[in-house]
């Protein structure tokens, strides 16, 4: 395989990007806002402190781009947690190996029960989530479970540990449509500080993961940062760089962006670089202008008041009625969560709200025969 993003990342300096991301003037931000095709510098100008007065205009343009590309619709999905076993030690995560929580891996029967419960709520697109435990929840487990889950839903997304290109090729054949691998942070020092043990401590393996997904021809690749671990503008700049790189190299894949902010979990850490609501909006809108075809999803980590404002501006897919624990829908609703959620509205209630906002909730926009 050719050198991936890891090699490009190694040539970059975090400090340089950090300074750069603050160096833009209002005039440069205005110029970026006026463009129809943006480059990395334009994006940085739009997320810079100088661009803050332009936020209303930025949001208006982001909304216009979103409606033109995606129409007045909102894709709905729900996460399906299969396991909370984890061989990593991430100091911000409730699933980390040292956390004293009850561990659980769903059996085939339990998975079936969960799928039926989700179907009953009208969910047709699921994001399968597991902790990262290669030995106990790896390819043999996926080989067993994916065909069971596939039967129930039109679209399957996967958020598990980074795997090899060959594994991704196989997962595609098993019916996986999208794979999400979030970098958490692009700052090496912070990455090493928060990821203490396990495969995840290897930053290069994770940075090159979207390359392996692209090479394997996976239809949709999800990238993201866990905002709060390091300076948000710099992390966003690297994320944008990664996106532009991937779009250039793997032109047949779709891209989706997640913008989770670090939340209190049962591990409990102080958030060193909090991302404010205002900056979250600025960030999302800037990504919309940088890449009009980018899917942007917003999870139930965010509270309803914010989601209801932000979704109509630039979000293309959102979850509803989410449970972040294995078996949380029907098997064992009492189990421990990976993180606490803030928007606990049911899918039915959320759909109703979307309609009030002038958006058609869409549960199905894919077919199992596509992307195989």
């Amino acid at each position, binding site marked *: 395989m050719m050198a991936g993003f890891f090699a490009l990342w190694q040539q970059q300096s975090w400090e340089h990007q950090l300074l750069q991301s603050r160096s833009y003037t209002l005039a440069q931000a205005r110029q970026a806002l006026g463009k129809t095709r943006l480059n990395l510098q334009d994006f940085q100008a739009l997320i810079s402190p100088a661009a803050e007065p332009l936020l209303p205009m930025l949001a208006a343009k982001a909304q216009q781009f979103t409606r*033109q590309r995606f129409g007045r*619709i909102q894709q709905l999905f729900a996460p399906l947690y299969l396991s909370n076993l984890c061989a990593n030690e991430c100091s911000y995560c409730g699933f980390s190996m040292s956390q004293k929580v009850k561990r659980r891996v769903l059996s085939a029967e339990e998975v079936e029960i969960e799928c039926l419960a989700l179907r009953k709520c009208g969910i047709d697109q699921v994001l399968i989530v597991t902790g990262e435990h290669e030995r106990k929840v790896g390819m043999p487990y996926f080989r067993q479970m994916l065909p069971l889950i596939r039967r129930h839903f039109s679209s399957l997304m996967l958020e598990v540990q980074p795997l090899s290109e060959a594994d991704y090729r196989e997962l595609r054949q098993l019916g996986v449509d999208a794979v999400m691998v979030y970098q958490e942070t692009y700052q090496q020092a912070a990455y090493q500080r928060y990821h203490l043990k396990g495969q995840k401590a290897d930053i290069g393996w994770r940075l090159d993961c979207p390359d392996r997904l692209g090479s394997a021809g996976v239809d949709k690749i999800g990238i993201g940062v866990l905002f709060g671990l390091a300076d948000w503008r710099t992390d966003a700049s690297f994320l944008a760089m990664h996106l532009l790189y991937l779009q250039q190299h793997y032109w047949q894949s779709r891209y989706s962006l997640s913008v989770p902010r670090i939340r209190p979990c049962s591990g409990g850490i102080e958030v060193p670089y909090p991302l404010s609501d205002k900056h979250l909006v600025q960030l999302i809108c800037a990504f919309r202008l940088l890449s009009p075809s980018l899917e942007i999803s917003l999870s139930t980590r965010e509270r309803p008041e914010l989601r209801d404002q932000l979704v109509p501006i630039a979000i293309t897919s959102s979850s509803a009625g989410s449970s972040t624990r294995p078996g949380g829908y029907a098997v064992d609703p009492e189990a421990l969560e990976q993180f606490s959620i803030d928007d606990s509205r049911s899918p039915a209630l959320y759909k109703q709200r979307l309609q009030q906002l002038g958006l058609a909730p869409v549960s199905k926009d*894919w077919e199992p025969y596509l992307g195989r």
Partner: protein
Amino acid sequence: MLTLDGVQLNSALLLGTGKFASARQLIAAVEASGTELVTLAMKRLDLQHQSDDILAPLQQLGVRLLPNTSGAKTASEALFAAELAREALGTNWLKLEIHPDPRYLLPDPIETLQAARELVKRGFVVLPYCPADPVLCKRLEEAGCAAVMPLGAPIGSNQGLQTLAMLEIIIEQASVPVIIDAGLGAPSHACQALELGASAVLVNTAIASAADPVAMATGFRLACEAGVYARHSGLAAACTQAQASSPLTRFLETL
């Protein structure tokens, strides 16, 4: 009048059904547009759970359905979608769409031609969405397609007839209907396409994304009618010089 597979359609406007805020809004726009043929994505229909909210109202309206293979990146995926559409919707009409590039959704000429050949063999009435390439359009015609659907501009871009020079050649050479698909952003674009000699236009984003989709659908209906009238009545040629309506030399006729 547009004739496809022996069926005459009075409206030169085809409508896409994506991007609307609700089924009700879509239905109102379809009615206002006067269209008799609407295209819908197989990937969007929920046939398995019978929970689809647009299919039944469209069928009730009596418009003809043109299922499309949107989402397919290869000929084989498009063939699969086509068979599914024929079985589920009881029509052998198909809008063939293959776009391996999810960013600009540009059609793949190679896969499209391959799929068109196979679909024609299997008895489909094939309407392929294709690049505005005159040679490809002749090839698709030779493959037995019932029409060709070259793009005016990237889909959803509202840029109008950016491929004008190629569209003129395609229309001049075609012996099947030419339906300009994709990129039409305003009623004037649709009118221009029909004045040029296109048999029909297909519009979705310009209507669905308008502040008032129903009013915009009406605008497109009127523009399409205007375009068809203009074509049939014979457009006068453009000229760089002014030509007086009452020439100064008229006196010569009386001499």
